[in-house]
């Protein structure tokens, strides 16, 4: 049963793990929902209105409107990635919550999958809050922009699966600094978030599209925010789906190897 290559042992019970995380989140919701509400407002003022006073327009769009969807996309990435790295690691390693759960009919694969689903849910919740903020500033096209909400769950699955991969392999919680500085921060800066990708050398553009998930997420989110669909939108969804499946499978296998010995 502990084969690395075995078929994942998943059942409906994965949702009991999701419910556990949801219940904990609700207990502190009033504390939880303020930061995602306030942070985009800071960015909108500092970058959108501050820097935007000099930049004026990008691709014919006011700068503040250009970065607004990127802020929504970034919140998907950060929330999913934080949840399934630091938070999951604390539950797995310090609180031994995973050990406690797998002493029941819930399998370890269910636990990992439940955590990934919860990470995606948090991406959805927080992206929705940020979306509400940029909607209040009339920076997105309605009702099309509401499609960003279901999309944020897919993007959340992608970032959660990647995060869980790191959680399954890092020796200690400090090691998360590496994916954060070498993967998340470059994405935050270079994925068409605050300036268009075409100013980058072509080789870097290709590299970004091939390896940085946020480029696809920003591209789709921005198009939806403006009520359109990007030229390579379906390719982006396909890329995201493929990487999500691959990283989920790897997370399950590596977590099994880590905990079931």
């Amino acid at each position, binding site marked *: *049963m502990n084969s690395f290559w075995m078929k994942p042992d998943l059942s409906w019970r994965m949702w*009991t793990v999701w*419910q*556990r995380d949801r219940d904990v989140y609700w207990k502190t919701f009033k504390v939880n929902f303020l930061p995602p509400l306030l942070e985009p407002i800071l960015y909108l003022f500092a970058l959108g209105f501050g820097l935007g006073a000099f930049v004026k327009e990008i691709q014919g769009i006011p700068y503040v409107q250009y970065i607004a969807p990127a802020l929504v996309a970034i919140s998907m990435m950060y929330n999913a990635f934080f949840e399934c790295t630091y938070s999951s690691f604390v539950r797995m390693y310090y*609180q031994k919550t995973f*050990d406690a759960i*797998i002493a029941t009919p819930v399998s370890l694969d269910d636990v990992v999958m439940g955590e990934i689903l919860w990470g995606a849910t948090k991406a959805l919740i927080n992206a929705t809050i940020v979306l509400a903020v940029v909607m209040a500033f009339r920076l997105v096209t309605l009702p099309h922009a509401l499609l960003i909400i279901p999309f944020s769950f897919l993007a959340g699955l992608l970032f959660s699966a990647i995060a869980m991969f790191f959680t399954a392999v890092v020796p200690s919680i400090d090691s998360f600094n590496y994916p954060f500085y070498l993967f998340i921060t470059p994405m935050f800066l270079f994925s068409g978030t605050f300036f268009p990708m075409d100013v980058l050398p072509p080789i870097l553009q290709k590299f970004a599209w091939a390896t940085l998930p946020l480029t696809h997420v920003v591209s789709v989110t921005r198009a939806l925010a403006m009520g359109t669909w990007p030229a390579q939108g379906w390719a982006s969804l396909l890329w995201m789906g493929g990487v999500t499946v691959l990283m989920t499978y790897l997370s399950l296998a590596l977590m099994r190897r880590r905990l079931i010995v």
Partner: protein
Amino acid sequence: MSSTSTPQKEPIIVARDLYKTYGDLVAVDHIDFKIYPGECFGFLGPHGAGKTTTMKMIYGFSPITSGHLTVFGLPVQSHSRQIRARLGICPQEDNLDPDFTVLENLLVYARYFGIPKSVALDRALQLLDFFDLLHKKDQIIRTLSGGMKRRLLLARAMINHPEVLILDEPTTGLDPQARHAIWDRILSFKEQGVTILLTTHYMEEAERLCDRLVIMDHGRILVEGRPQQLIHDLVGHEVIEIYPANGFVDRIRERFPDLEVETYHNRLEIFLRESDTEVTEYILEHLQPPSLYVRRATLEDVFFKMTGRQLRD
């Protein structure tokens, strides 16, 4: 304790030629045992003996390397989920959920078993009452004492009304009051017909609770039997301890060549098959040791005899 295990019943857990390695380390080395419904079965042994690994294999945390292991007649490799649904597992270390209160811990745990909410609430309140934790039900886990945490772990293990309760060192680190509180609850579950598997370092605990036990070391089972039978067969009835032992050993061996005599760190132990005042009288009269102590033989004597006195750290 009482002798309730009835061999005519079908065993509930069967291990045959069970073997487990971690890399080069052999953790469990071809062991066999059978556990029958309703009995309390103990695994004793020093650190690294293979007790916890054996438990983990039973509940599917640790895949077996080779051999056979069935629980409820089901092989553990293929039916781990079904088996765990009918087990109660009380781990060695506290893994209560610190994000929840006492009551919530039980309710959330019940949900993992798919127990409906109303049933779960009834059971949780009953268990909290039974474990003297009802007044703490809305407290956060951090505020509980060690004894309370252990009682809650035990309550949590019973939330699914398990047929087999697995206790990994249930009283390690507890004060005598807390320890007896745990023992009483365990015995009452046993009376209700729950089969109990227990690992422990405490010989008194094993003597009190276990109908049968095995002593393990280096992954092997050294002896198996009922506690009183093992004491009687392997050590005897009484033990005389003398300290310091200087010079007495040879004289005692000379006078009573048939007696089993051991020394450790200048302390002398004489094992008596039967209660025998002749030996004591001789020692008092002729050797006059500074200190002499006659006591009943215990499981600890069996334990040392089987596993030696070497430190295991």
